[in-house]
Structure formats: C-alpha cells, structure tokens
C-alpha cells in the first residue's frame, strides 16, 4: 500500500492509539496538518506557542502514563520546543515530538526556517531521528514510541523533511521492534535483592526514599505493600508526590531543600536508605559529602547511570521499580523479619518527636495579608474529595503546594522538577485536561511563572479545557526575592515585577473568567466560585509578598541544618519603587 509520508504519519499515530496531539503548523508541516484535518481519530489541539505544545504533551504524558505527542514546524517551531524537551529529559517524561524540516535537498543550505533539529536536540532527547526516506517513516515512528516508553522514559524527536511528508512510500508498521544497542534491564539481580533483604532485616533506622521512577513504573501499589510490610517510613521527592499516599501514617512527606523537617532529619540520621526510582538530585541530598553519613544505601533504578552518579551506593539494583519491589516483597515474606519492626520502635519514637517539633505549619491572622500557604490549604480543603490533578509552575508557590496539598494517588501531580521550568504549569494542566475532560484540573501558579506561558489561556478557552488557575500573586519572583533576603542582604535585583497585569481583566480578555481575592475573608468565596464555573478560570490571589518558604536547606548545606523560620540576622529589603511614572497602584505592597 503506497501512502504519502503525511498519511503514514497519521496512520502510525492511530496504530499507537494516540488520541490527542498538540501542535502549531508552519510551511513544511502543512501537508501533515492537512491530512490530520481530514480525519477524526486524532484530535489536534492548536496551541499558541510551541513551548505550550511541548509542555501540554508532558502534562498529558504525566497524567495518563501514555506518550504525549507534539507536532511543530521547522526552525523556530523546533527551537521553541527545546525547553519542553530538556524538561522532559530531566524528569523522564515520555513525549514524542515531531518537527518539520526543510526538504532533504535543501538541508544544510541555510534554507528559510531551517535549523539543525537533530543537532540541537541531540543532548536533550533520549534519541532522535532524521527521516531521509519516506519508506523508513513507519519503522522510525514505531521505534520512536518504543524508545520513549521503555526503560527510563524520555523525550524522542522525529524530524520529518517536507519532501518526506509529501512523497509516497510503502507503509510498513512493525508490531514490535528491537534495537541492538538498547536493551533496558527490567529484572533486578537476584543476588543483590537478597543482599537488600538482609540489609533491611538488620536495619534499625531505615528510610524509604521514593522518586518519580515509582510513578513512571506504576509501582504505587507495590510501594505501599512494601512499606506496610516493613513499617519503614517513606520520604518522597518532589517528583514522587502521590506515589505513596501523603496522608498515610508512614509518610513523612516531601524531602529535600523545602522538605519537611521530619523527612530530612530521618534521612540524615538513618542507617539504611532505600532509594526507589530516584536519582539523588542535589536539591535532595544537599551537601553530598554529608548526605546520610551513617547509612547504607540500597538503590533501585532502571537507569544504571543514576547509580553511583552522585552518592556512594552499597547495594545497587538495576531494574524496573515495580518488578524489583515485587521480588523484594516476595523475598521479605519468605524470610520473616522476626522482631525487626519491634526493634524499630525507638526510630519511630524519634521520628514522631521530629514530626512534633517542626510540623509544616503557618499562621493566618484574620486581618493580615493572605498567606500563600493558607490559600493552598483552602484549595486543598475544597477539592480533596474531587480527586483533582494539580499542576504547578516553579518557585515558592510550587514548594508550598508540594508541602500543603496532600496527594494520595499517583499521576495527580504535574510539576517541573529537574529543569525547574517556569511557565510549565498552565500548559501542563491543559495537557492533562485534554486527556481527562471530566476531571478537575488545577494549576497553582505564581504571577511570574504564569506570565511565561499565559498565551495558552487562548488554547484553554478555544478547546474548552476548563482548568482553574490559581495565581499566588506576590508581585515578585518570590523564590528569587527569598534568596535575596537570605543571601544578598535584601537587595531585590530584578525580582520585583512592578506592575503585573490585571489578571482578572486578562482572563476576561481571553474570554475566560477572572476572580480576585485581596482579603483573607474572600479566599473561600473565590475558590468556591472558580470550582462552580465550567470555563477556564484565573483566580488572582493577592498574597503576602514577603512570606518566605520554610523549612529550607541552603544550597550546599547539609540535610539536618534546616532553616525553619526567617533568621534574626536576615535583612529584609526595601520595596523597590515602581518604574511606571506617577503610578504606584500596588495596593498590597503599599498597604
């Protein structure tokens, strides 16, 4: 059967079960969009910027566990999608990005809208392809999805020159592919697992440290069984939130730079760290040389390069988290651990002491400015029964959301961890909403982050994706301002956003709904109102601009040296003057 490259492309998407793709057309991909336009099986969501398309594909993939797909044009279309590619690479998100390319005979000629797509994306994709012959297209697309979804997931880019999309070729879509240089290990080494079982039996102060890999591997049930069987406390990284129920008595919440006091103390003073699908990021370990100094480390990960990259590992287990945990559980059950649980009583007493000493808390006086933590807490209270998907941008609001929005199920938390991409939240929320039209999708954003991809509000409105965006508006790049308070004597260099847009009017301009709360008493009202509307909503919450996010481990600090509150020596800066002549409408800041 002879088909054009564009037809082959669409046929491949159908065979992969792709229902929705995110994209933006341009000269060299018009043929593909034309074919997409004439069929009904694959929905195309037109974004307003290619970065939006990439992040939507990420949100879609994170929420569904299926590959997210984006289709963009050559040159600027491709370069705009680089940030989502890097973001997906850092956070192991399976997305397949198709880029247009100038016709093969023009490649290398500096043609109009030409960029070296495979060259640019090589260091930020798991793999990439340049299709030179339409007859290879089916095989390549199959391999692209296979690589993205297997092993440690990640982004794959397929570059399709215009003539490849136009030409006719033989359509061949193999049922399965094998690549000789690519054979991920799924089964853990039995001997190492046995070593792990022995170490767990011996441990008096063990801790489980879960990363995002537990979610990608769909290992939440196995993780829960493992933790309950051994009664070992569970720390989660930012990426792992939801992998283990946050409200479970074994959960110590998030660890790392802004993690809970108990979680960081527990990992520091433990004698056995069981790392599961995590990669010992510097935001988690703090000062590497002082990371859990007394502990043996078991590390389960599908990617061998994660093991011993940053910290010493005593028992490495390369394999799929789900498979290894099953095996581990079976072996643990076969060798009853006797009174190990009993012997860990003192450890639990110690942990409970830490929990009681510095719980995650905040104070909200009724007549003071709105505290951002209070907002998160209220959103949580109003939505917890609705099983929402929560996306965030990057900054203080992200950390407060991670601390105060308790997640009990996996794939409910969309956040940019490794790369820390501001502007991720809203498009990611749209991607999730496109996958689950009937679910409640929330986006918790900051005023700075939101402005980085706010054009996608148009995508939300046009495609009827009723996400609820809550902007914790502090008129600052809050996390930057916090660091300036703590480490730069309060000099607010380029962190004050001066006149931010009127987000209510902005929402209205996009034909969405805008709401605002400036007083504590108004918060509940606007949240309830936002949840009632069946349209995209922006809720502008004017929060205390000087609230800092704690606990905090200063960069390069050790995990047990947390700052719990504003230190007395901290020098708070002056509010910068507005640069807008004659205007200082910043009601909250002048109040």
């Amino acid at each position, binding site marked *: 059967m002879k088909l054009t490259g564009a037809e082959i492309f669409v046929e491949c998407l159908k065979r992969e079960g792709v229902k929705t793709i995110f994209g933006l057309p341009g000269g060299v991909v018009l043929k593909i969009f034309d074919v997409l336009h004439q069929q009904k099986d694959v929905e195309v969501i037109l974004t307003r910027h290619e970065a939006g398309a990439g992040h939507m594909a990420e949100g879609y993939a994170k929420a569904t566990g299926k590959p997210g797909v984006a289709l963009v044009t050559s040159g600027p279309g491709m370069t705009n999608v680089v940030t989502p590619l890097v973001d997906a690479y850092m956070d192991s998100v399976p997305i397949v990005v198709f880029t247009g390319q100038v016709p093969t005979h023009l490649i290398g000629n500096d043609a109009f809208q030409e960029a070296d797509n*495979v*060259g640019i994306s*090589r*260091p930020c994709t*798991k*793999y990439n392809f*340049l299709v030179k012959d339409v007859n290879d297209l089916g095989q390549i697309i199959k391999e692209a999805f296979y*690589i993205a979804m297997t092993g440690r997931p990640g982004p794959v880019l397929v570059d399709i020159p215009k003539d490849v999309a136009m030409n006719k070729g033989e359509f061949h879509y193999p049922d399965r592919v094998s*690549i*000789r*240089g*690519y054979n991920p290990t799924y089964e853990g080494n039995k001997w190492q697992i046995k070593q792990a079982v022995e170490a767990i039996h011996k441990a008096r102060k063990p801790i489980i440290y879960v990363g995002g890999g537990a979610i990608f591997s769909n290992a939440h049930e196995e993780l829960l069984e493992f933790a309950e069987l051994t009664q070992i406390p569970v720390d989660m990284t930012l990426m792992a939130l939801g992998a283990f129920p946050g409200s479970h008595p074994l959960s110590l919440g998030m660890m790392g730079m802004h993690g809970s006091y108990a979680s960081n103390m527990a990992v520091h003073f433990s004698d056995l760290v069981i790392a599961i699908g995590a990669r010992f990021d510097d935001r988690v370990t703090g000062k590497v040389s002082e990371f859990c100094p007394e502990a043996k480390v078991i590390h389960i990960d599908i*990617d*061998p*390069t994660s*093991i*011993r*990259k940053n910290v010493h590992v005593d028992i490495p287990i390369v394999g799929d988290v789900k498979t290894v945990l099953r095996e581990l559980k079976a072996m643990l059950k076969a060798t009853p651990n006797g009174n190990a649980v009993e012997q860990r009583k003192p450890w639990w007493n110690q942990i409970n002491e830490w929990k009681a000493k510095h719980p995650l808390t905040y104070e909200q006086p009724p007549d003071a400015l709105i505290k951002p933590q209070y907002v998160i807490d209220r959103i949580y209270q109003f939505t917890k029964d609705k099983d929402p998907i929560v996306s965030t941008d990057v900054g203080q609001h992200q950390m407060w959301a991670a601390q105060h929005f308790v997640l009990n199920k996996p794939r409910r938390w969309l956040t940019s961890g490794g790369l820390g991409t501001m502007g991720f939240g809203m498009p990611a929320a749209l991607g999730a909403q496109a996958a689950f039209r009937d679910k409640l999708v929330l986006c918790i954003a900051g005023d700075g982050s939101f402005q980085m991809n706010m054009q996608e509000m148009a995508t939300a409105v046009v495609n009827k994706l009723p996400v609820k965006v809550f902007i914790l508006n502090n008129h600052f790049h809050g996390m930057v301002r916090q660091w300036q308070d703590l480490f730069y004597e309060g000099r607010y260099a380029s962190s004050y956003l001066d006149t931010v847009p009127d987000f209510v009017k902005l929402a209205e301009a996009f034909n969405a709904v805008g709401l605002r709360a400036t007083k504590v008493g108004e918060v509940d009202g606007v949240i309830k109102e936002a949840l009632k509307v069946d349209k995209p909503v922006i809720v502008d919450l004017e929060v205390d601009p000087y609230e800092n996010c704690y606990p905090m481990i200063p960069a390069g600090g050790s995990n047990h040296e947390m700052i719990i509150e504003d230190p007395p020596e901290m020098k708070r800066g002056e509010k910068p003057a507005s640069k807008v002549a004659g205007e200082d409408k910043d009601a909250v800041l002048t109040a």
Partner: protein
Amino acid sequence: MEHIISVLVENKFGVLSRVANLFSGRGYNIETLSVAPTLDPSMSMMTIVTRGDDKIIEQIVKQLNKVIDVIKVVDLNESEFVERETALIKIHTRQEDRAEALRIADIFRGKVVDSTPTTYTIEVTGDVRKVEACINLLQPLGLKDLVRTGRVAIAREPVRQAAAQPKRILKEEK
C-alpha cells in the same frame, strides 16, 4: 588514571556526535579518539582514551552504554591489551642532518614515506611511548608537521592450552 575504552557503535550519521556530546556535556575529557568501520560495515569501532578516577570511568562506561547507538563498551584496562599508534612526522633536514634523521627513524623501525631534498616524512608505529620518544628525538632536527592517529587497542587473547583450531574470519562469510 588513563583508560582505553573500546566502543562498538552503529555505523550511521550522528553517532560520533552523540558520543562526543556525552563527553563534553558531562565534563569528561577525550585524549584521543579513533573511529573506523569493523568487519561488519553496519558497525564502527571507536577507541577512546580518557582519564578519570574509578568513579568517573564507571560513569563514562555506563553513560556510553546508555547511548542507544552504542552496542558494546569494553574498558580495556580491565584486562591485558595491546595498543598502537601511528605518527607521520615531517621534518626539515639540512644536508648534514639527513643521515641522522634516517638513523633515528631506523632505531624506531620507522619508514620514510615521502622525501624531498629538504624534508623527510617518517611513518612510525608503536605504543604511545615509542611514538613520543621518536618525535622527541626528531624534533631538534626541525619538525615541520606532525599528525598522529590516536591510539587503537585490542584485548590480548588469554593463552589456552591445546587451543581448538581457530576459525578464520573471512570477509565473504558475512
């Protein structure tokens, strides 16, 4: 410590760049690199000489294995190996130095592969110390140009008593 790593890769475009990117992106050093197709033309063999402590070398080997176009990685330092490098050394020679140049070349079993009234181009092959010693001796005569292939290496075969008749690898057999 210096390590010689053999990397069997797919013989297609972009692979060299993937491997080179890996080294530059993670701050590892390539001291020398040589690439050529193997008996099977769909594969190439890269020989990479790099430096690092055990932790870094472990990461390099793992990272190389992670590259999808990489088929096999062998750290040759884990066993015995033989290494060779070829240099082409072009030297200016005054009349009175020409005999000396030939003598030096002879000591290192080098060959003169090109000759003009004022220059010799000498080919010398050996392990890296031999090549460098030859270059050092020739340098005072007036080094005009120098190219080196970088090192190639292969593992030594363990000696087996009463080895079976070795199978001949013929090109036609493929």
